[in-house]
Structure formats: C-alpha cells, structure tokens
C-alpha cells in the first residue's frame, strides 16, 4: 500500500479547514473522524465568527461541511482513531478499530472533550441526570430544578440556556467569583431564576436510578441542592492520547511551533488539541489552514 500524502485526524473547524486547503492543493489525503463539527456542533450560539453576526454552532458546522463536500473529500466519519504510530521508513500509520492508514504526514486536529468533575455519583448517574451537553439534553429538564457546575463561559452559556427551560438554576462555581465574558455574566446575574453559589465545591452527585441532588461544600457549611439535572461545564481536556511520541505540555496539549509542526517531523497539529492559546472556533480554523500549508511545504521538500 502506498502512503497517502496526509491523514487529517478530526473534523472540527481545524480539521475541516485543513481538508479544504488540502483539497485545493490536490493532495492525496483522507479525513478520519468520530464526528463532524466537534465541539462547535455543541455550541449554542456563535457570535464571534467573522462574517456571521449570529449563527448556531449546528448551522456553522453545516456550512463547514457543505464547503468540504464541494471537493469530494474522502471523509471517514464515525471512525475513531485509536493510535498514530511511526513506521520504520519514516512514514506514519493511523490506526482505527478496523483498518490502518499509511501516510507521509499527519495533521492531528482531534480537539478536546469535556473534563470530568471526578466526584462520587458522576459516572453512575451519567445520562441519568448528569450531562456534559446542555444544548443536547437541556430540553429534557423542562420545569425541573437543575445545577450547572462551573464558572466560565461554557457554564454561563449552559445556565442561560437552562433559564429558558428549567425551574430554578443553581450555578455552582468553585472560584470566588464568576469568570467568562462580562456580557454573559451580566445576563446570568440579571436572571431571578439563577442562584449563584461562589466558592462552592461540588462533593457528590446522588440519586438512583436518576439524579436527586448534589452535595456542595461552602464556607457557611455544606448545602444539599435537590436537583434533577446536573450540567457539568468544568473545562476540557485535549484528545492527544492517540499520539504518544510527540512533545506535549503539562496540560497534555501537543506542542507545536508557529508553523504547526509537532516535535517529530511529518506530524502537524492544529486547533484545540495544541498548546496554541485561545480555544476559539476562528482560531482553530486558521490553525488548520496553517497546518496544511505547512504539510504542503514539507511534502515538497521531502519528496
């Protein structure tokens, strides 16, 4: 089997933009991905992608996909990459459960996944009231009391979504004050449906078979919040486990230089899986473009 020019892993804004650039360069490549859109698909409202004053994450992803489809790109969707390996001849092997793809370069654009809270009850009550996607599961909690765990933009976004749907919304924030953008904070603080608990540590999620409440530790003493839904929005971790031979930072992010090169020649990375600061859709898209232009240059120098 002859090696492909490139395998792009992931199809969020970074992976899709990389694929658009690769297609225009007529590279011999495929995209291998679990889903199309990545975290963007789960964003409710996007108001900072240039050209769109307002668009939902789902609509933006549909636009991305439409752009991609125009080129007849080979998209292995619904396919999990299990590992990227170095072959003896300097090429790489991208393994999935079913098959393995040989390639001269790889662009890792595998994004991030939600961070777990790591408290008792979280795993066993997952999808039984515990969720990591307010956009998906929010409407199931119509009229019910819920807790959102977290204090950044994602938590504020989830709280604002739930204000429209739920009964009472507790926002359980581990820090002394809320983070995120001022615009979002003001909206949350203006709602009489939201109670913000600052400096509050979530200790346990309890119930059975479905969530019945959470236990929270605060300065004033413990509190027991009777809620049926728990939305966990405490950040994310990079999906970088699939490649174990490149340099990563302490957060597990793949370290790239300003040409998107990882520490091993031939491996490039882009978007939220990397150490590039600012996890933004538009940043990831730009990084995807840069990565493939870097791949193109690398291929023409090493061929």
């Amino acid at each position, binding site marked *: 089997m002859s090696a492909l020019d490139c395998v792009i892993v992931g199809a969020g804004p970074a992976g899709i933009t990389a694929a658009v650039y690769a297609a225009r360069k007529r590279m011999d490549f495929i995209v291998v991905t679990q889903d199309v859109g990545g975290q963007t*698909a789960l964003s409710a409202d996007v108001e900072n992608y240039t050209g769109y004053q307002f668009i939902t994450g789902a609509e933006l*992803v549909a636009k991305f996909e439409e752009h991609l489809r125009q080129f007849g790109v080979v998209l292995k969707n*619904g396919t999990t990459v299990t590992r990227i390996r170095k072959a003896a001849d300097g090429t790489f092997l991208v393994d999935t459960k079913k098959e393995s793809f040989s390639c001269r370069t790889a662009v890792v654009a595998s994004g991030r996944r939600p961070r777990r809270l790591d408290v008792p009850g979280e795993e066993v009550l997952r*999808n039984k*009231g515990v969720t990591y996607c307010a956009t*998906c*599961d929010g*409407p*199931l909690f119509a009229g019910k009391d819920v807790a959102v765990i977290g204090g950044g933009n994602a938590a504020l976004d989830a709280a604002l979504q739930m204000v429209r749907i739920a009964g009472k919304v507790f926002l359980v924030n581990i820090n002394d004050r809320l983070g995120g953008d001022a615009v979002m904070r003001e909206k949350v603080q203006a709602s009489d449906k939201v109670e913000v608990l600052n400096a509050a540590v979530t200790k346990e999620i309890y119930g059975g*078979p479905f969530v019945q409440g959470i236990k929270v530790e605060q300065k004033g003493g413990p509190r027991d919040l009777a809620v049926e839904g728990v939305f966990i929005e405490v950040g994310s971790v990079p999906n970088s486990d699939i490649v174990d031979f490149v340099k990563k930072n302490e957060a597990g992010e793949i370290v790239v230089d300003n040409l998107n090169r990882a520490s091993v020649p031939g491996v490039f990375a882009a978007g939220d899986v990397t150490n590039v600061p600012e996890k933004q859709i538009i940043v990831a898209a730009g990084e995807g473009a840069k990565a493939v232009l870097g791949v193109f240059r690398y291929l023409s120098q090493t061929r």
Partner: protein
Amino acid sequence: MAQVKVFSTPTCPYCIKAKNYLKEKGVAFEAVDVSQDRLALKEMVDVSGQMGVPVIVVDGDVIVGFDQERLNAKLGL
C-alpha cells in the same frame, strides 16, 4: 424493513445528524420530540434507562447516542 424510532430534542446536534444520516441512507423512521411530548420522554427513559438524547430504537434494540457503527450494523448499511 426495520422499524426505526428516533427520540430527540430540536436543539441537539447529534439528533439532527442522526436524523439527517437516516434520511441520507433512505431509512424510514418515526421521529419524536421528547421536549414536547412528556409521554414519549417517559417511554424513552423506560426503554433506555437513561435521559441522554438521541435514543434510536431499531426493531426493539436500543441505541443510545448517534452511534453510527452500531446503527450501520443494525440496519445493514
């Protein structure tokens, strides 16, 4: 032909994708919006033992989430 029922919410991206995928493949299915239909929500929770959407029931077999591999296997796609 397989009996397919999709429990979903209007805002859930995976639900939209799952339904689009079935349409693309020419698979007929019944779609229920559990954010509007309390009885359907209860049925979904009863058959799947959980509250995440989408839930896709193919000839009585319950698939939680848009699990394309399992869906393909069940539907012979």
